[in-house]
């Protein structure tokens, strides 16, 4: 494909853009592609709990986002999105690395992240409780740490559905 136009033609096209935002395609927005393993019906509470879980686990280990990214071999921008954006769907590879790093079962973290269908209603219930108890503030409080430890215990239990 070859497209020949004058310099003025290209500049005129740019001027007409008026600094508007330009992007097309839903791609990785939640539920965009049927070909992915993304669960469209993943409970929102799970997703909130996933972001909180990653944030609190990181802070509990006194790591910055960049430090966690480096240690877990992940991209810092994706971690930032996971912690801040409940609509974000992480890459399966990311969840795999987080499960390894935090030493929790990968399959249950995948469910929590909304990447697989919820098969364990108790995990969802506990995720709701955890999300409600762990609302983010700057310092990790004793209550938050207790909530985190309790949830890690639930996450690590063997599920009857697995």
């Amino acid at each position, binding site marked *: *494909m*070859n*497209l*020949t*136009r*004058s*310099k*003025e*033609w*290209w*500049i*005129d*096209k*740019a*001027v*007409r*853009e*008026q*600094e*508007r*935002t*330009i*992007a*097309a*395609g*839903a*791609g*990785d*927005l*939640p*539920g*965009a592609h049927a070909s992915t393993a993304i669960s469209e019906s993943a409970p929102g509470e799970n997703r909130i709990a996933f972001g909180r879980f990653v944030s609190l686990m990181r802070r509990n280990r006194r790591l910055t986002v960049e430090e966690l990214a480096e240690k877990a071999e992940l*991209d*810092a*921008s*994706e971690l*930032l*999105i996971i912690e*801040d*954006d409940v*609509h*974000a*769907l992480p*890459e399966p590879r990311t969840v795999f690395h987080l499960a390894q790093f935090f030493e929790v079962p990968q399959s249950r973290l995948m469910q929590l992240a909304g990447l697989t269908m919820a098969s364990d209603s108790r995990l969802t219930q506990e995720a709701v409780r955890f999300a409600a108890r762990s609302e983010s503030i700057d310092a990790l409080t004793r209550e938050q740490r207790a909530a985190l430890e309790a949830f890690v215990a639930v996450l690590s239990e063997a599920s009857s559905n697995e």
Partner: protein
Amino acid sequence: MTVQVSEISLPNRQSGQSAQAELRDAIDEQPLLDWMTRWQPFTADVLRDLAARGVPKSQWPQSRHWNWGAKMAEVSGLIAFRGFCVTCNGVTQGLMRVDLTPLAREDTQAGKPLVYVEYLEVAPWNRGDGGRTPHYGGVGSALIAAAVKLSIDEGFRGRIGLHSLPQADGFYRDTCGMMDLGPDDGYQRLRYFEMTETQAQAFLREEAPE
């Protein structure tokens, strides 16, 4: 396959000067390296800044989760999918992947083949996120021009279609003059836009002689 390169010009919105750039009909290794080593760190900085300033997430870049490496890997070797990029000063400024298999929907051309723009994104420094001044202008228009030209080359008479991210609706409707067919229930209710043969001719029309 030989990569075709079209010489284009982009205005540098910060300096007011124009710059020579290239529109390439392939996404090979270098653009993906740029995405990984330049786009992603820049995006991370933008997100940190937006988060720190309490900018609502509705105003964050809606393509922030995109993974161009995965997008190109999944269609590697498939001739129905093509990649395009814009480079300037040796750095990738925009990326686009198109699919030649979908059919047109608009009443006057329904069922006819078109070039469907699956993904189009400009480099994060070319966006005005959070009130920043974009670096280069015209990157999105250059990629749309490439899609229209490919459509003509393929015998599709310039017909193109795409689903717009909500922040970009105005660009496709007002700047490109595309038909707005409304929210698509089958695609996250993103608005679907189509360019007809007539609209394509207008979009690619060369300057009238003085």
